[in-house]
């Protein structure tokens, strides 16, 4: 943060703005976290950590700017810190199976989840922010702090990889599943 600021004692006004503005974004944060981690418990842990951080940093959010984007940026930082921390690595789908999201063909569902898990996490982030959360390429570039060219190449590679993985898992395939 290069913005100079005074130490802030969080006040009542701050708290009520936080409490009134946040709920609208929860479903979206939870969906993104679920897709990112592949596990509902880990996902809600990630959301909770994000919320706590957002709460403490709320005075840094510029009123009127895109709150959802700001929250995704925080979630990205929390996520990156988690996967960097030894011993706290997010477990893979194979280590910790979770029931697929309801209302979806279970076979389709598992395949998509497994395919997502096979993507490098930074490709997965780009794909999910754009496709699942509908963020603009500009916003993704800004919130992940990466150049537009990198956004595009990650998106392209994620799609290519996902396409191949899903093709392998398609019912018509005669291959046995190799994990």
């Amino acid at each position, binding site marked *: *943060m*290069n*913005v*100079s*600021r*005074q*130490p*802030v*004692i*969080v006040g009542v006004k701050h*708290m009520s703005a*936080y*409490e009134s503005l*946040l*709920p609208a974004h*929860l*479903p*979206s944060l*939870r*969906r993104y976290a*679920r*897709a990112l981690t592949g596990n509902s418990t880990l996902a*809600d842990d990630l*959301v*909770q950590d994000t*919320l*706590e*951080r957002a*709460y*403490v*940093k709320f005075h840094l959010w510029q009123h009127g700017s895109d709150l959802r984007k*700001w929250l995704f*940026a*925080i979630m990205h*930082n929390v996520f990156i*810190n988690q996967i960097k921390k030894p011993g706290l690595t997010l477990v893979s789908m194979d280590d910790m199976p979770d029931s697929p*999201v309801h209302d*979806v063909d279970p076979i*389709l*569902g598992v395949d*998509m*989840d497994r395919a*997502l898990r096979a993507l490098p996490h930074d490709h997965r982030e780009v*794909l*999910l922010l*754009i*496709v*699942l959360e*509908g963020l*603009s*390429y500009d916003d993704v570039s800004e*919130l992940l*702090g990466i150049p537009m060219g990198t956004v*595009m190449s990650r*998106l*392209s590679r994620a*799609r290519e990889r*996902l*396409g191949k993985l*899903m093709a392998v898992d398609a019912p018509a395939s005669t291959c046995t599943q190799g994990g």
Partner: protein
Amino acid sequence: MSALPEYELHAYVDGQLDAARVQEIEAWLMDHPEVRRQVHGWQNQNARLRAQFAGVVSEPVPDRLHPRAPMRLRYAQAAVMALLLGVGVALGWGLHVKQVSGLAALAGYAAEAHRVYAVESRHPVEVAGSDSAHLATWLSKRLGRTLRIPLLNDKGFRLVGGRVLPHQGRAAAQLMYQDPAGQRLTLLVTTQDLPVHQEQLKLVVRYGVSSYYWADDGMACAVSAALSETPLRELAQLAYDRMEEPG
């Protein structure tokens, strides 16, 4: 229109283009069945991805995620306020500040380390700050995480350099700064698994040295100097801000 750059096809699939451009691209795709197949594949992929997680948004939100101020932070906040009040009273009465938490103990350690090394005239640091990139790489390696060395030149404090110190069985980093009058300031950085982020600065006075400390992102830090409260707090806040990652 001969060929379309790939990014435009992605932008088309992701709904990032205006209506006019969409029309042009759709017309172009009519004449290019190969590309059209690929684009359809991506569209299918998008649809499956969205369908896969569509249910999440209608799930009831678990109670622990309701965005009231997180409970433990409320307590922490109350504790911070009480402590600040206490610090004010204590200083007013010329009493020593009692440390209660492990973080306060860290600040005490920072003050101790400041007292020991800040008086060194010839060997204040292990690695000079003239090569700050090397210093940052070395300390990051020892800490096991990326350290951004905050520069305080605009406040008159030039980076002298840094050293590694032992702290609870791990490596801690001490950075030293000096102003033109020879006043020294140190920043101690430790890594530890802290249950609570403490982003408000707190003060501990020990060995005649004042330290402002905080904890964030698994790093606990303290800025120490024999300076009065207000300028030190300003410097500590600046160091904190400049060490932070964006976001």
